[in-house]
């Protein structure tokens, strides 16, 4: 092995990167952006689930348990009226609420502790901390009333999902859309770049084809492939993985298809800013990863730091993920205002990207 020749290869490699600002950005800017975002998301997020406490107990026990729950670090509690509980679960301001009925103390004296626990249920990760905090609070009572054979029997109800609802049910809904979005994006950006690098785009531009015809033609071609992929992903998720679905399958497919068309146009648009396939792939950590982190797939948008919520609110993936979850977990249909917003934003984004793709195509060639 010759040291000189090895050195020549090493030197060539570094010289090459010196002129490749994009790769340098990928190596040194992307990690800071991704880790910074992740750190801010995890540290800055309100992690303790908000739990409402409605104490209707005519005896003393309800107040004691409520006080113990308020001390709990795993959840943050607020006092509510039992009648408002369901609407607070629906608007997302609470992940659960606990009701101590009027006869809570008297039942406990008879040997049964039976608080009503109402869970929102769509995020399985938040159910654990709520039930755990309740259990710990109840232990404090049991210890204050020794000798009696206390029977703890909470009535747990779920607004969405149910006790069998697991993490895959929660993430599956979002991932059905994400998988299609991501793969269609990569395939489109690389194919459109091929058109540029193999010189055929130059030929198309020297033909009577209009720019819009090229973009729409591409969009339709990839949409055919993307729709077939969407069907496949949907069938696999529902029939094989048995991801929970309370909604209309056609609606899920419609949302998937919208995301696929958005991905096609994002791919065409961004391909204008890359010259090689390698550069195109570099868009993934810079464009796709932050969207993925901020879309609410992993971290609920409601609990993000306020600054990041603003960012999340302008990213189309956020709406797509929200829409898919609303349909599959909550059984939303098009009469729901939130779903109308989700579909409208994603569709608007598609139109915007088509226009942007046509406009950039013109600018780069002339």
């Amino acid at each position, binding site marked *: 092995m010759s040291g000189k020749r090895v050195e020549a290869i090493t030197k060539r490699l570094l010289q090459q990167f010196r002129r490749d600002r994009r790769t340098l950005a990928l190596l040194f800017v992307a990690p800071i952006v991704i880790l910074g975002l992740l750190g801010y998301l995890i540290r800055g997020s309100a992690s303790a689930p908000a739990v409402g406490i409605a104490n209707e107990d005519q005896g003393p026990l309800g107040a004691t348990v409520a006080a113990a729950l308020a001390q709990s670090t795993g959840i943050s509690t607020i006092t509510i009226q039992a009648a408002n509980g369901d609407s607070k679960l629906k608007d997302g301001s609470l992940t659960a609420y606990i009701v101590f009925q009027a006869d809570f103390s008297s039942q406990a004296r008879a040997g049964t502790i039976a608080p009503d626990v109402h869970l929102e249920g769509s995020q399985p990760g938040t159910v654990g901390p709520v039930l755990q905090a309740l259990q710990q609070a109840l232990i404090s009572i049991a210890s204050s009333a020794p000798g009696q054979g206390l029977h703890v029997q909470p009535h747990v109800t779920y607004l969405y999902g149910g006790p069998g609802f697991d993490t895959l049910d929660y993430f599956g809904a979002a991932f059905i859309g994400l998988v299609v979005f991501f793969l269609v994006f990569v395939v489109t950006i690389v194919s459109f770049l091929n058109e540029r690098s193999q*010189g*055929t785009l*130059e*030929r198309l531009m*020297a033909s*009577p*084809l209009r720019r819009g015809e090229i973009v729409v033609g591409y969009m339709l071609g990839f949409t055919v492939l993307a729709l077939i992929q969407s069907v496949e992903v949907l069938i696999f998720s529902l029939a094989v993985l048995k991801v929970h679905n309370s909604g209309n399958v056609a609606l899920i497919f419609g949302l998937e298809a919208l995301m696929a068309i958005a991905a096609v146009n994002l791919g065409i648009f961004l391909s204008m800013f890359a010259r090689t396939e390698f550069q195109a792939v570099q868009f993934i950590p810079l464009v796709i990863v932050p969207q993925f982190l901020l879309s609410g797939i992993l971290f609920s948008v409601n609990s993000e730091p306020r600054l990041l919520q603003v960012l999340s609110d302008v990213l189309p993936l956020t709406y797509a993920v929200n829409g898919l979850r609303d349909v599959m977990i909550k059984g939303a249909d098009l009469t729901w205002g939130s779903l109308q917003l989700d579909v409208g934003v994603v569709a608007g984004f598609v139109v915007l990207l088509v226009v942007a793709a046509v406009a950039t195509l013109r600018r780069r*060639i*002339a």
Partner: protein
Amino acid sequence: MSDSWAVDVQGVSKHFGDVKALDAVTLRVRQGEIYGLLGPNGSGKTTLIRMFVGLVAPNAGTVTVLGKRMPNVALLSHVGYMTQAAALYPGLSVEENVEFFATINGAEGGVKAALEFVKLYDRRDSVVSTLSGGMRQRCSLACALVHKPQLLLLDEPTVGVDPQLRVELWDGFKQMADAGTTIIVSSHVMDEAERCQRLGLILFGKLLTEGSPNEIRAQAGKPTLEEAFLSLSERRA
């Protein structure tokens, strides 16, 4: 009588940043003429050809093609453009490539004739990625002429094509020109230049001189085009 000019370039300049690609070029090409653009690499030949199809806008001057000021997208169905590198879809067959370019140029039929012209009809089902460089070049040529354009722009068309086939292709070009097609060929191959009716010598973005091969040899006082070109280049430089 600007109508009789297939291409009319008047005082065209183009710069890319500080680099002057074309500097006040004026030239005209008659209909049915085979005109050769000669010049070394980087002299501005390709920039000029790209202007003929509206892909490059001049900073100054005008480009008129088949009587229409460029850029004019509708006119492009009457123009055939063969780019320098064989720009084809490698995953499609020879026939599929030619059919595609026929369709986007609004032509119906003509695929068989184009493939026979470039002697690729027997290989029409071959996938382009399996072809040799010379065959790709011929397929690319078929794509450029399948819609029977009035103006055919060929950017170094016979690179990698063997000498015998090159002679046959040039015979074909001659027939097309006789039938009224205007052909503009860029080249730095002198034996191709010899086959053109008129030549324009381009150096550093300027048109050095124009004329038939005989006129250019006489002007330089040299026996071959190659020597004439070198001599004229040195005089300017």
